[in-house]
């Protein structure tokens, strides 16, 4: 076996051990080393050189990145998730025919969809969805995300919140929690448009807060422009739209005149 590959596998074993121990700091360190080692393999994307060890290297690399993605969920680091996911993605999209598909593929894709939903990046969500084959939609992980999105769009927020109970994979829980926050933001946005004001009680119920304290904290953090007085929350109307701009008549007149002059000059 190639010494480099052996080194990577050994390091990866240690990483997995630490991962099982939930020793995330060690994991992060090891992962960083692993990634640097991986850059030495020419068979990995984007070069895809056909080396004798290509299959093993690709498999190991994919495995490492899959673990990295899960790790980032565990450490609740969304940026790292995105980074790792994108680095993982070429292994799913571009390696068919070289290495067998990974069993982790759909759960991770589903996770990514969920992440996009949480971050309210609906356009990207659909882009990702379009890239999947139609058979993939039957997969419970994907199906879960798709259904969530549908409910989210319909405004059936209760269904979204209740879906937490039916997660297909334990890693999904983290995102489901975050989703509640996204839903709250959506509701807040709608309320702002729909009402001039709400009583604090209504607002609390609407935004699914258990206490007034939480509501006030939310308001100060997220919507400092809301006012609370007389037991009501006043939403500040969006700024009046600018009055239509004045017609630049003088400029237009000048322009027209110059056109006329040019016309006369035309040879």
């Amino acid at each position: 076996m190639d010494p480099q590959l052996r080194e990577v596998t050994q390091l990866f074993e240690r990483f997995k051990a630490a991962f099982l121990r939930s020793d995330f700091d060690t994991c992060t360190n090891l992962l960083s080393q692993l990634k640097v080692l991986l850059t030495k393999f020419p068979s990995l994307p984007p070069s895809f050189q056909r080396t004798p060890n290509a299959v093993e290297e690709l498999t190991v690399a994919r495995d490492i990145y899959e673990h990295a993605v899960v790790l980032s969920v565990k450490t609740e680091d969304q940026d790292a998730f995105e980074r790792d996911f994108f680095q993982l993605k070429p292994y799913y999209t571009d390696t068919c025919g070289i290495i067998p598909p990974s069993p982790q593929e759909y759960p991770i894709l589903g996770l990514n969809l969920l992440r996009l939903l949480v971050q309210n990046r609906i356009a990207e969500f659909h882009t990702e969805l379009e890239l999947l084959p139609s058979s993939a939609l039957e997969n419970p992980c994907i199906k879960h995300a798709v259904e969530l999105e549908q409910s989210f769009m319909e405004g059936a927020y209760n269904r979204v919140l209740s879906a937490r109970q039916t997660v297909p994979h334990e890693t999904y829980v983290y995102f489901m929690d975050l989703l509640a926050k996204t839903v709250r933001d959506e509701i807040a946005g709608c309320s702002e448009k729909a009402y001039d004001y709400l009583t604090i009680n209504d607002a609390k119920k609407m935004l699914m807060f258990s206490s007034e304290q939480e509501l006030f904290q939310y308001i100060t953090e997220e919507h400092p422009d809301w006012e609370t007085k007389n037991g009501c929350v006043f939403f500040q109307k969006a700024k009046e739209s600018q009055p239509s701009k004045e017609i630049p008549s003088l400029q237009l007149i000048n322009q027209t005149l110059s056109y006329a002059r040019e016309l006369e000059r035309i040879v």
Partner: protein
Amino acid sequence: MAVVSSASGLLAMLHEPHPELKLHALANLNSHVHLFWPEISTSVPTIESLYEDEEFNQRQLAALVVSKVFYYLGELNDSLSYALGAGPLFDVSEDSDYAHTLLAKALDEYASLKLNPSKSADEEAKVDPRLEAIVERMLDKCILDGKYQQAMGMAVECRRLDKLEEAITRSDNLHGALSYCINLSHQFVNHREYRCEVLRLLVKIYQRLPSPDYLSICQCLMFLNDPEAVANILEKLLSGTKDDALLAFQIAFDLVENENQAFLLNVRNRLPTLRPQSPSQGNPSPESTLPSSQNGTVGADSSVAAEDVHMNVDSQTPNGNARVVDPNEVAYADRLAKIKGILSGEMSIQLTLQFLYSHNRSDLLILKTIKQSVEMRNSVCHSATICANAIMHAGTTVDTFLRENLEWLSRATNWAKFSATAGLGVIHRGHLQQGRSLMAPYLPQNGAVGGGSPYSEGGALYALGLIHANHGEGIKQFLRESLRNTSAEVIQHGACLGLGLAALGTADEEIYDDIKNVLYTDSAVAGEAAGISMGLLMVGTASEKASEMLAYAHETQHEKIIRGLSLGIALTVYGREEEADTLIEQMTRDQDPILRYGGMYALALAYRGTANNKAIHQLLHFAVSDVSDDVRRTAVLALGFVLYSEPEQTPRIVSLLSESYNPHVRYGAALAVGISCAGTGLSEAISLLEPLTSDVVDFVRQGALIAMAMVMIQTNESCDSRVGTFRRQLEKIILDKHEDTMSKMGAILASGILDAGGRNVTIKLLSRTKHDKITAVVGLAVFSQFWYWYPLLYFISLAFSPTAFIGLNYDLKVPKFEFLSHAKPSLFEYPRAITPPTSTSAARLPTAVLSTTAKAKARAKKDAEQKASLEKASGGEGSSGSASGKGIKSPEKDADAMQVDSAPEKKAEPEPSFEILTNPARVVPAQEKYIKFLEGSRYVPVKPAPSGFILLKDLQPAEAEELALTDAPSAVATNPNNSGSTTATAQQGSGSSAMAVDEEPQPPQPFEYTS
């Protein structure tokens, strides 16, 4: 093989905290940027921040990636600035679109930075050193790769004279590189001062060479206006071997061709004056030869004497010892005399005259047809016909037509008479020795009023100017006196024009003052000529006088004077390019349309032949925006002058203008094409002019016809069939009774121009070395004034240059020498003479008289011409005609004719694919590329040029030389004298043409014409 489908993974990697991962990502992005630039473009800020991150150790790689992305996005400026940031990573030798584009961009940027001379010194420093580094790397690479031309081009463009020098000196073909560079500097360097710098550098390199190319050096030096250096080189060559001396003569001829009178004068004055042979050595033989050569007359006598001397030099070893005088000294003195003769221009003028005279092939029948069809009372057409005759015979000294039609000629009165007399000057152009005596009958007599009318006197002075144009040393004094001694404005008019022509470009203060006095009399007629004349005198000097003239133009009430002055002012800035900008600005912003009109000419002349974009832009702007038709017309016309060095461009640029609703603009467009494409026979130009020749407005037709003739000059029907169509169109217009006078006049002039100078001249504004011919350009500029003043038509003769190969030996004689034209003879032969409509014209058939007297020799030439025309005619009409034609010729004469002209004899045989030409021969510009010199012939040209004056090196000096063109001058001398006196009688209106008849050729032998 799997291919990565997205760069997102790599982009994500950029955010990794570990620097090595970032590096890996960047390196991979760099190699895949051509595929993924759309994806990467969204992450450009990230990469940019990497570049700006001082900690990151691969900032340059980041810059390179960003630069590439910007390149793909089409943001070349950003791309370039990041590429500069990439430093050494930006590989100039990379063979990719990216590298090529950015290099081009970098060069452009650098060149434009260098080009716009920075206002202050600190801006100079602002040229990005990184940019400079890239450009230098590029240049070095080119030099290393042996792409010297590329390197030179870039160095010139970027104003890096140091690199230019390096490229030239390191190139493998030094001479090739230098001549390439000279071309570059003329065609692509728009800035005059910079061009001077380049040329100075070239001269410097040339001089360092072991065997300098003196021909090119002297051309450069002429442009740099450094007569001192030229004189030194000539002197050095003259005291060298015989071959060196030949080279010196060649240089002198080349310099003369550029027609820079003032410069030539300076060179001549700087050459050492002949020391009188030291008396102590008192040997009678050199004493007797020297005086003749010392006179500077390069007549037959002196050169015969010179030949003696030269023979002595050659046979140095046996004879030299016996002689007391150092033969080298003698040879040197002799050479000095010769070169002064050449530099004075007299030699080339004389040879040209001989050539034009002996090869004259003008077709009198055309003139006759014109004369018959033109209505007697129509003076415009009448004088146009006289003018056409003058142009047709320009420089040939053949005035048969005038002599044959004395009575008809006498109808010219007043200004027409002025023009007619001036026409004589065109016919005898360059006849320096006899010029004065020729015109004597018309010239104002000292004190005596009797003479003739002031019109013919004025015309005669003008004619003298035309004869001596740009070589007026001998005649200046006389013209000045004539100017001072008269107060008649017509004579003043003629004298001013004459003086201006003779003293062209000499900037002679005294003459200037004389003319200024005339101007200040504020007489319209004289003042106009004075204005033009002042300009002619000061051509290209950009002197202070211009503002003086401008001030007077504001002061005077006469439009004529203003017009004359504004043209004069324009002439003063000839060729000064940017230097003239202030004056041009001043003129083009003037209230007075006439001054603006002068401003157009100033633009045209200052930027003549430079194809300068700024000038073109300005002219086009005036062409569409000025309120005065005159200004617009001139602006378009001026384009022709600016563009004459790139004739292919003109039709494209003026094509829209030629469809303008405004006839003045159309007229201008026609003439612009005529001027810039003159003598090229360019197909696009003809296509553009064709519709204009049948325009609805008469003067547009006139302009188009004249322009067409200028373009088609010396093109015959087998080159372009449209020439034949055009000739027939001209004939139709002339014969049409209902045609407008204006276009009729145009047609008459056009037929004159088409066959100008006995069909042996063309209009050339550039010399063979691509210098502008100052006389020619000035001539055309003033010629284009004929819109206002018909006598100025004759200025066109200044633009004519003979299309001849004239080979000269060491004695400056024309030896017998043959060379090859590797093309079908019919492509370049003379147009056929038109067939006489009735059998009566057979009266013009040749006499078979052949004698050794000079007078008969003169006619022998004409015989030859008619013989040729007869043969041509017979070629088309069957064998019987040719048989009878040949029957009357003696075999002796046949041989004579063969020597004069080797036009193809037999039409019936399949045409050969080449023809042997005999020195001196007619070589039209289009033919030049087919000229080859025969191997193994006795003479070898000093420089392998296909036309012009070429010095020939004699490989068998021991043998006797066979000369051609030996006794033509004496014939020329007698002939015009007769004609002069006969036309004199005509001019003075005396009906007695008996005397003239006396001198006529003998009546032809009876000859039956069969058709």
